[in-house]
């Protein structure tokens, strides 16, 4: 089923022509933003200079650092009065990244989600339980508005409290869920322990998973455990949130909406285009956003393009599932974490040494091992427990998730020399 059939099946020449037109409009719009204006003057690029798809390479890249430096609103392309919604990424001692939505942007984002939902057979008869975090995270509201557009009964459950999630599913006969892959596996485990067979007691048909890179095997595990179809989704706050790319019923790659985004796959080291079908870093240009479009945004996500046409008839090309990052960012329980954030918190605590180790295990367990400074030891067991809690609390405030903290003996962790291995990732996601 199609939400916007004409656009979704637009012939390539027309689609590419539309992209070019929207790209030029976006460059014109961005001339009002001092940050981009300066870059255009520097490189001598004007909207008219963009004559073909390849000309996008004449435009500057935009990075996460650019967003942080221009926080809170130096990248806004409309007046503040026209902004309807703000979403941000996590992080409190470092600067977060802010993304603004105009009324039209909110509606467009909802349309892209609606496309994705209809693509997999979701209709207004479905009951949609959104088990992703609401609040500043886009996974909540953006998905919510899209599901409402389709006409589903939307349950804004948010994450966690499996007991209550189950109750909602039983009482309201939830058919579709939006969930983290790691939580999906936990929930399946929870059901098993309770002796609830989802196939018999629940009405679940589909799950949309995202926000965490995961393997094909994990998808199949979730499908087997919960008795439903799992569809992979891709998105990032800077590009609206979820809904950038979605799997169709073929479940073989995610269609990326090319009327809204120009996609490039580059070699992250040389910044040159990657070869045909080669894995590289995904670079996205939002060509249909009003409040804060971004040019050639470096997502740091690694993927490859599928150029073959899809049997579903959609002409928007597909990307493979994300296989990794080209920086050291981690995603735990759907939350983006940089090891540098942890380092900043620890360095501000004299009772803790500077060396640390991040251990990721199971589906989403995160343990941070830190060293107790001998001078901070006063002999009291209680005080050490308190210190451990203090570190965990400070990390939670910075990371927006609470890791387990292990205080270990001074000198027992590997010393940081140059690019030290700070992260051991043994997860089976």
């Amino acid at each position: 089923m199609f939400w916007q059939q004409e656009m979704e099946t637009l012939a390539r020449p027309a689609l590419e022509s539309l992209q070019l037109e929207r790209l030029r409009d976006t460059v014109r719009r961005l001339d009002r933003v001092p940050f981009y204006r300066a870059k255009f003057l520097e490189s001598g690029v004007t909207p008219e200079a963009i004559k073909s798809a390849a000309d996008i390479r004449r435009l500057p890249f935009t990075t996460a650092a650019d967003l942080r430096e221009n926080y809170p609103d130096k990248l806004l392309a409309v007046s503040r009065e026209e902004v309807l919604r703000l979403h941000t990424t996590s992080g409190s001692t470092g600067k977060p990244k802010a993304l603004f939505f105009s009324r039209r942007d909110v509606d467009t984002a909802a349309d892209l989600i609606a496309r994705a939902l209809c693509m997999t057979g979701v209709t207004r008869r479905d009951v949609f339980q959104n088990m992703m975090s609401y609040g500043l995270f886009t996974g909540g509201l953006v998905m919510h508005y899209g599901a409402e557009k389709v006409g589903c009964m939307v349950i804004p459950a948010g994450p966690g409290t499996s007991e209550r999630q189950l109750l909602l599913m039983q009482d309201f006969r939830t058919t579709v869920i939006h969930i983290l892959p790691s939580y999906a596996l936990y929930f399946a485990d929870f059901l098993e322990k309770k002796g609830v067979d989802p196939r018999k007691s629940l009405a679940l048909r589909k799950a949309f998973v995202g926000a965490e890179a995961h393997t094909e095997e994990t998808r199949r595990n979730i499908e087997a455990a919960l008795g439903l179809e799992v569809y992979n989704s891709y998105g990032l706050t800077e590009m609206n949130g979820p809904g950038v790319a979605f799997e169709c019923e073929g479940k073989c790659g995610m269609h990326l909406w090319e009327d809204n985004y120009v996609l490039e796959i580059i070699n992250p080291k040389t910044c040159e285009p990657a070869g045909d079908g080669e894995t590289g870093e995904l670079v996205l240009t939002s060509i249909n956003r009003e409040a804060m479009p971004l040019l050639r945004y470096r997502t740091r996500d690694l993927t490859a393009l599928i150029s073959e046409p899809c049997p579903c008839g959609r002409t928007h090309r597909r990307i493979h599932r994300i296989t990794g990052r080209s920086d050291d960012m981690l995603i735990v329980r759907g939350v983006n974490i940089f090891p540098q954030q942890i380092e900043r918190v620890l360095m501000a605590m004299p009772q803790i040494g500077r060396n640390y180790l991040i251990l990721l295990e199971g589906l989403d367990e995160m343990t941070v091992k830190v060293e107790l400074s001998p001078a901070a030891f006063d002999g009291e067991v209680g005080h050490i427990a308190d210190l451990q809690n203090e570190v965990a609390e400070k990390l939670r405030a910075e990371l927006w998730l609470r890791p387990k903290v292990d205080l270990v003996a001074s000198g027992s962790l590997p010393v940081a020399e140059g690019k030290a291995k700070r992260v051991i990732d043994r997860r089976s996601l």
Partner: protein
Amino acid sequence: MNTVKLLAVFSENRPGQAARVTGILARANVNIRCVTIASSGTFGVMKLLVNDPDLACHTLQHEGFAATLTEVIAVEMADKPGALHSVAECLADHDINLANTSGFVANNRAILVVEVQDSGLAGDILKEHGFHVLTQKETMAV
């Protein structure tokens, strides 16, 4: 002098850690009279009454351990029912709280090792009530 030095050592709560500490002490020819280990999750604190606390502490610190010396009171009691009770009652009457406490019996003498907030005061009170509060030297000679 009312107080006696007690050695406290931090280590991880996993096999081999206690052996590491005691091995170091053994090689330094330190004799342990009394020991408690309090563990909490992934770490533990060993408290040891040793014959040479300063040497023991420095040796462990030199080996990279987080070790420190705390002040405790060593009280001698008769080794019979009611003896510990009379010490506890005396401190209770003066509103003094027994924090970490352990005890040992050696050579027919029973010694209670008590951590309190104000060891000087507690020691004076116990002495006033006729209890034998041991000095550092006397504790080592038990």
